[in-house]
C-alpha cells in the first residue's frame, strides 16, 4: 500500500497525529487510546510500517513507535510543485487581465476581441 492510501484511513491518521504529538509511543499505549481491539489497531500499525510512515524500535519487551517524516515530505513536495505550475498559469492570466483592463479603458464601447 502506498503512502497516500495508508493516510486515507481515519484511524491511521489519528495514530500518526498522536505519535507526532507525543514524540513516540509504545504499542500498548497506542492500543489503549482506541475502542477498537488491539488486533485491529495492530493491523493499522502494520500498514503504517509498510508505508514507512512510522518506524519501530524494540526496547526490552516493548515496541516503541515513532513518526517517520520522510513520506510526509513527499506530499509537501508535490503540493509545492502543483502550486508552482498553477502560479505559472496564473501569471499568464495576469498578463491577459492587464490587456483586458487596458482595452476596457481605451475602447469602452467596443467588446473585447
Amino acid at each position, binding site marked *: 500500500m502506498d503512502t497516500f492510501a495508508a*493516510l486515507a484511513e481515519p484511524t491511521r491518521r489519528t495514530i500518526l497525529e498522536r505519535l507526532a504529538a507525543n514524540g513516540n509511543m509504545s504499542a500498548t499505549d497506542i492500543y489503549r487510546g482506541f475502542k477498537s481491539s488491539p488486533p485491529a489497531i495492530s493491523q493499522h500499525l502494520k500498514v503504517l510500517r509498510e508505508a514507512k510512515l512510522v518506524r519501530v524500535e524494540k526496547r526490552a519487551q516493548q515496541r516503541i513507535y515513532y513518526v517517520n517524516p520522510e513520506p510526509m515530505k513527499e506530499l509537501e513536495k508535490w503540493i509545492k510543485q502543483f502550486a508552482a505550475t498553477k*502560479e505559472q498559469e496564473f501569471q499568464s492570466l495576469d498578463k491577459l*487581465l492587464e490587456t483586458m483592463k487596458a482595452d476596457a479603458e481605451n475602447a469602452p464601447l467596443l467588446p473585447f476581441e
Partner: protein
Amino acid sequence: MANKTTVTAEAGKQELFVIREFDAPRELVFRAHTEAALYEKWVGPDDLAMTVEKMEAHAGGSYRFLHTRGGHVYAFHGVYHEVLAPERIIGTFEFDGLPEAGHVIMGTTKFEDLGGGRCRLVHQSVFQSVQDRDGMVQSGMERGVVDGYNKLDELLSGLRETNTASA
C-alpha cells in the same frame, strides 16, 4: 507586490484548494474563465497549442478543450452546473486520457471582490477518492499541462491513441 498561488491539500482528504489574488476586477477574471477566446490565452503552458473546442458557459452546458504537443492530443471536458457572473462557476472536470473512465472531479471556483479593482479566486476540487487526487497531481495530469507533459507522456505510453482519433 506579486500575487502568490496557495495550494492546500491535506493528507488523506479527497479535496484540494487553489487560492490566488488578482490585480483586476472579478468581472474580468470571470470572463477569462468563461469566454473561449480568453480562456485559450492563459490556460496551459506557452509552448502548447490550447484549443477550446466547446465552451457553453451556462448551467447544463458543456466544455471540451485540447492541448496539443507534437502528435499528442490531451483532451479535458466537463459539464457546467452553475455559472453565476461574476461570482462563481461550478462544474465537473475530466481528463479523457485516463486508462479508466469515470474519474470525475467536481470543481467550484469563486471570485471574491476585494475592492480597489482587486479580487480573490478560491477554487475547490473534490475528487472521488484520495487516490484520485494524489494520483492526478503525482502523475502530472495537471502539472504536465505546464511543464511539458513529461510525466503525462509516461502515464500515457502504451495507451492507444483513441483520444487523438476522437479529438
